[in-house]
């Protein structure tokens, strides 16, 4: 029965199916990934997302506020995290002396995954877990920086710090915070902050990976100025 059947329609059908499958694979290759996070955000969107005051850690009533501008992929930022921030968190922030604000200042160019990392942290922040993700990202920076696409590694961190992965996946795939990260970068630009890490403590602005002792003496000097006499 099938012997003399005209096979042309079948070949055409198979060809169309192959094209559809190819298109699907192609779109999957271009969905998400470093590319999506590196793409520029429309100016209007970024402007609408402006006004974010950074991720806050510490008490509202702390006498000194430190604003940190950092890039998750910058080695100096990771060094600062290791040498100073962790101690500062324990001795100054948790004790109510300092209130810390972290601002995204992704340095594009050499840091291809900076925005993706900032976005992963924002998605963790959505679930109230920004700081654990911030720690994971800096602690493992050397590992994920060397990857071709660290998206999956970030997801492992998300799992490790106990995020709801379904919500995290949804957040990452929609790129919900791309505009806010862009707005943060522009705001830092407007302040003239072009290198990371940069700390703004009172009226002082310091760039570079300070050690804990240096950071503490700066904070001491600021709190001495502001202390009521």
């Amino acid at each position, binding site marked *: 029965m099938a012997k003399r059947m005209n096979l042309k329609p079948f070949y055409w059908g*198979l060809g169309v199916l192959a094209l559809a499958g190819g298109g699907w694979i192609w779109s999957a290759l271009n969905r998400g990934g470093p590319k999506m996070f590196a793409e520029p955000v429309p100016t209007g969107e970024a402007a609408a997302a402006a006004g974010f005051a950074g991720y806050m850690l510490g008490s509202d009533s702390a006498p000194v506020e430190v604003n940190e501008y950092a890039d998750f992929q910058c080695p100096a930022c990771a060094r600062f995290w290791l040498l100073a921030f962790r101690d500062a968190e324990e001795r100054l922030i948790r004790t109510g002396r300092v209130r810390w604000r972290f601002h995204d200042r992704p340095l594009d160019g050499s840091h291809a995954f900076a925005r993706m990392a900032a976005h992963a942290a924002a998605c963790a922040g959505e679930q109230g877990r920004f700081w654990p993700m911030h720690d994971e990202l800096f602690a493992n920076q050397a590992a994920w920086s060397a990857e071709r696409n660290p998206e999956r590694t970030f997801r492992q961190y998300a799992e490790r710090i106990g995020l709801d992965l379904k919500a995290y996946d949804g957040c990452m795939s929609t790129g919900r915070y791309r505009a806010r990260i862009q707005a943060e970068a522009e705001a830092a630009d407007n302040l003239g902050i072009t290198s990371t890490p940069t700390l703004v403590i009172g009226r002082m602005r310091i760039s570079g990976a300070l050690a804990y002792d240096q950071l503490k003496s700066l904070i001491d000097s600021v709190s001495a100025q502001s202390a009521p006499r």
Partner: protein
Amino acid sequence: MVIATLALVGFFVALYLWLWKLGLVGSLACGPGGGCETVQTSPHAEFLGLPVALYGVAGYAALLAVSVAGLHPRWAERREPAWLLVLLSLIGLGFTAYLTYLEAFVIHAWCRWCLVSAGLIAAIFVTALSELVSRRTPAPRAGR
């Protein structure tokens, strides 16, 4: 024809999973449940040092090639392609059964795309078998 169509669909499913394994596809479109990543990152997602999905890509490509070739007039009367399809899909089915067993009892997570592939290979096997049986009967030989 049915086999060729199913094999082409299976080929793309396996290709997608393999590309993901290579890190070229960001996140798996897995739908609610999200067992895909659990399954795909488990140590069982590799077999003899190669990703399981790569065997799928190769297997479906072979099924596709044999089924399309089998439709060619030169082969349409012969039973070798039908035998080969049954043999190939039986190997695929056995491998899939093993993987599905791993999902159910070892990894304890379900990967939707793997289940789609399992359904496809089962359907291919059934079709190939019925094709073989129908070619065995002398009716087509009468050449009407």
